[in-house]
């Protein structure tokens, strides 16, 4: 396939990581007063935005007494300590919750992207009765807030016997109409000639989809996968409702349940926050480009 096709298909992924170094307004001096002011404003805002996380980190390395006495010192009077982390990690469930979060988010992402891609392809390429109104119905469902469905959905899970099970946690999260919309728009832009060539060679619809369309769609599939994964990883309300068994909980829900128990042990609470934040932050540090692109692309609904 030609390079022109590739660039055309890459286009919908906005690359916000490619801010031009020379984005100086034409005619503007490199070290003009405006640029210095802009730089100062950026530094100030970045500090403001980093400070809460930084401060949580600092507190998590203090003793409980130092943390409870307040103050803005970096290292408490009793010195630097990893006590809080040791306490959290020794009481057990954090590993299980992190593991639960990891694998359920991965499964949710895999199922969501797979079924959305198949449906989006049908909406984009295949003729069938009711194509248009079915698609409209899926798009219209974007307006339905999932929070308004928790009561009947929970009732449904009760009748399916899926309360307090992984399936009850995972399945209701796999329907994401915006993803179908984004992928359909992407498939619409893929030149149909590429598929026709394969069809003439006798490949069936499914073959064409897997061997021609999917390989072309890697950038967009990566982008939406990142978005779905972050959403699933951080989802609170549904996992909070559907899971009561401590060993089945995801990280956000598990941490919430022990919060009251540690209510006044500030360095432990902060150590928990740091531990829970760590996985995504580390991934972000390594894959900033991809994540930023993925979120920007998906956030707009591919517009």
């Amino acid at each position, binding site marked *: 396939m030609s390079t022109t096709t590739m660039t055309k298909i890459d286009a919908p992924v*906005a690359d*916000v990581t490619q*801010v031009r*170094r020379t984005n*100086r*307004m*034409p005619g503007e001096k490199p070290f003009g007063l405006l640029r210095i002011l802009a730089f100062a404003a*950026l530094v100030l*805002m970045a500090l403001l*935005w980093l*400070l*809460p996380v930084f*401060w*949580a980190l600092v507190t998590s390395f203090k003793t409980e007494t130092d*943390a409870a006495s*307040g*103050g*803005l010192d970096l290292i408490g009077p009793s010195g630097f300590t990893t006590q809080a982390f040791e306490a959290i990690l020794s009481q057990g469930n954090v590993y299980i919750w992190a593991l639960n979060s990891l694998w359920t988010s991965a499964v949710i992402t895999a199922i969501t992207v797979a*079924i*959305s891609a198949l*449906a989006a*392809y049908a909406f984009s390429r*295949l*003729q*069938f009765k009711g*194509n248009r109104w*079915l698609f409209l119905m899926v798009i219209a469902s974007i*307006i339905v*807030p999932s*929070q*308004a*469905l*928790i009561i*009947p959905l*929970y009732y449904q899970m009760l009748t399916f016997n899926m309360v307090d099970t992984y399936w009850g946690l995972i*399945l209701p999260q*796999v329907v994401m109409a915006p993803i179908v919309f984004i992928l359909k728009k992407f498939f619409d832009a893929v030149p*149909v000639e590429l598929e*026709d060539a394969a069809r*003439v060679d006798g490949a069936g*619809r*499914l073959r064409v989809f897997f061997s021609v369309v999917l390989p072309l769609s890697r950038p967009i599939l990566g982008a939406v996968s990142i978005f779905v994964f*972050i959403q699933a*990883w*951080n989802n*609170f309300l549904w996992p909070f409702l559907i899971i009561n068994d401590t060993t089945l909980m995801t*990280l*956000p829900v598990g*941490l*919430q349940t022990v*919060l009251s128990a540690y209510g006044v042990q*500030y360095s432990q609470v*902060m150590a928990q926050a740091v531990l829970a*934040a760590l996985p*995504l*932050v580390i991934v*972000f540090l390594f894959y*900033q480009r991809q994540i*930023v692109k993925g979120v920007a692309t998906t956030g*707009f609904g591919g517009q």
Partner: protein
Amino acid sequence: MTDVMADRSAVGPDPEVTPGAASGPRPAPPTQRQARRRGQLAAWAFLAPFMVAFVLFVIWPLVHGVFLSLTDQSLTGSGGSFIGLQNYSEALSDAVMWRSIGNTVWFTVLTTVPLVLIALIMALLVNTGLPGQWLWRLSFFMPFLLASTVISQIWVWIFNPEIGAANEILSAVGLEPIAWLQTANVDLISIAIATIWWTVGFNFLLYLAALQNIPTLQYEAAAVDGAGPWRQLFSITLPQLGPVTGVILILQMLASLKLFDQAYQMMNGNSSESSRPIVQYIFEAGFVGYRFGYASAISYIFFVLIVLVGIAQMIVLRRRKEDS
């Protein structure tokens, strides 16, 4: 647009295929009809997994919710008899429900303007191409990656009345300390502050992406005509961001109206009159009060609120587009 959708799968010219209407009344030769039937089957094979999940987890709850809202169903399984519109009339005269809606709308007002404005300023500053791109994106966007649990814990700590950073800062500039999350009406503002810090990075990215799409040529042309940086900002950049701002505004308002996670967790599950959002009232009616029927009715009132806001914004946006 829609024609493209229907035509795509046609291999070569095919007069029998009318765009969008595969069920055309004209009789087709048998071979073609067979091919078409096979095409229908293939289409449904692709659609089935998503549609099954869609019907089970969106359509069915949506329909069943209406039914539940007309009964006195309880979470414990008792009740379930038809009581007509009683739940709705009760909800409409329920002061707590109206207060929750009021809180939700107030929170939306408090967060939407800063979340759009600050995001815009951040994006404009970062887009100047100043060194440190990696760091700016990290600082502004990273909070968005944190779970609601994590940001709630951090901000409860910051808002701690005795030892929290917020009061340390207040006393440093000579102001009286505030019991942020323990004072009526201040609690929702505190939640709004935490929310702005948490989610502004998302809007920032959307603006940054939009800024990249403005052709540099326009700036070069303006510079040739002698327009300075401010002039360029106000006559090129901001007007071009108009449509994007409309989209961000809609997304932001709809997101703010769905407030629950951080409000619930920052108040540690104890709701106060002045901070309880409508989603939390649904949760409390259903899972604390066990009144599934009543909670379903409130869910529908909430749903109507969301739809009304969505429609109102669509109309405003469309009118503005026609004006320009």
